[in-house]
């Protein structure tokens, strides 16, 4: 009898914890909705909305570089790599952030943004393909969402009976994602996964996979110079050591036998398309858009 009573009390309580029942019938326990929401993956629609809001925030900070030839070219290289992405249920979008910082970012929902500073320091298309492959894996595998969830920061407060994320909630999520991208870091496992699987994408598209670790090696050496801290410090602080990444990728290249193959690097095509003919204006101050 005692056991039965305990069991029924427990079942009753668990029933009360269901989000659908909570706010309407038991005012004051609406926090339960948020706890329950935190445990589920973002829907495709939510992923898109959060990705767009994060992209807008990054554009607000850095501005978007919209030189048509360079944008089209980055999209073509991105599409070449993304055709081999394991996740094909969403579209990948590529853009250029107007900052000298050397970095690339992947928001939820398939948005991949590289910086002008990064483009200025790449030697060829194969290096760009390696970078974009890395970012395509980050966004496709929902790395930022998983990272936020592991820190219990992925909860979405959705109003009962609607599928829309309230604007304030969306802006808050975009802030969290942007902070994670610009001032935080992903776990070493996620970065390693993006490196190795991203390299597979670039190699599948036919690019020389040796280009990407070569570029990372260059950045590793450049980051040792004090004068380069402003440009590469953020990337250095948010990723595993360049030398460790290069070592892992070299091992992968050796195991796959890619070091014995001659593949295109396309330096000339890169230099023809990535041009910075004029300096676009700084973005308008907040509130003046």
């Amino acid at each position, binding site marked *: 009898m005692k056991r039965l009573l305990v069991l029924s009390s427990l079942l009753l309580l668990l029933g009360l914890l269901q989000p659908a029942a909570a706010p309407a019938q038991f005012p004051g326990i609406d926090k339960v909705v948020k706890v329950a929401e935190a445990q589920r993956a973002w829907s495709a629609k939510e992923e898109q909305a959060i990705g767009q809001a994060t992209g807008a925030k990054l554009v607000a900070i850095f501005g978007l570089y919209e030189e048509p030839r360079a944008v089209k070219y980055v999209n073509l290289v991105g599409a070449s790599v993304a055709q081999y992405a394991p996740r094909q249920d969403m579209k990948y979008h590529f853009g250029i952030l107007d900052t000298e910082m050397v970095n690339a970012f992947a928001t939820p929902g398939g948005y991949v943004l590289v910086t002008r500073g990064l483009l200025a320091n790449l030697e060829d298309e194969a290096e760009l393909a390696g970078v974009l492959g890395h970012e395509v894996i980050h966004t496709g595998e929902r790395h930022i969402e998983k990272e936020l969830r592991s820190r219990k920061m992925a909860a979405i407060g959705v109003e009962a009976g609607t599928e829309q994320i309230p604007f304030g909630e969306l802006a808050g999520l975009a802030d969290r994602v942007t902070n994670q991208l610009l001032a935080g870091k992903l776990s070493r496992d996620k970065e390693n996964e993006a490196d190795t699987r991203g390299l597979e994408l670039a190699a599948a598209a036919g690019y020389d996979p040796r280009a990407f670790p070569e570029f990372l090696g260059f950045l590793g050496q450049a980051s040792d110079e004090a*004068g380069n801290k402003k440009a590469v410090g953020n990337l250095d602080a948010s990723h595993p050591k360049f030398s460790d990444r290069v070592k892992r990728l070299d091992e992968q290249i050796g195991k796959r036998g890619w070091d014995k193959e001659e593949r295109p690097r396309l330096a000339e095509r890169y230099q023809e398309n990535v041009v910075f003919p004029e300096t676009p204006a700084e973005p308008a101050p907040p509130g*003046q858009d």
Partner: protein
Amino acid sequence: MTVRRTPRPGLLLLGALLAAALLLAQAPGQQQPPPEEKKQEKKEDKPRKRVFTGKINLRSSRQESETASYGFKGVGPDGRMEQAALERQPGETDYIKVARLAIYQTKAEELAAFLAQGNLRAKEKKP
């Protein structure tokens, strides 16, 4: 005379609350953050194809007439983002620019030509 104790409802509810809290704490997606990653020793990597001599200066995408600090936008001297930049909120124009990114799609024929020109590989479509 032996008195059989009847279960107290208050105690039962307390027990149930504890059990529910334990269940929620163990639910998937609520895992603790991964332990701090072990710092690895700095190790020199083997020589790359690119050969560097002396000081390595990163290239700038800006024109020569512009100052060295121009164009970073909210990045501090150590490469970390300044708080003011992180707090910046997007306006309507920023949302429109991102929407334009989403609308832009590489055409299949353009991609095919681009791959062929670069001697790259198009993914075979499943029949």
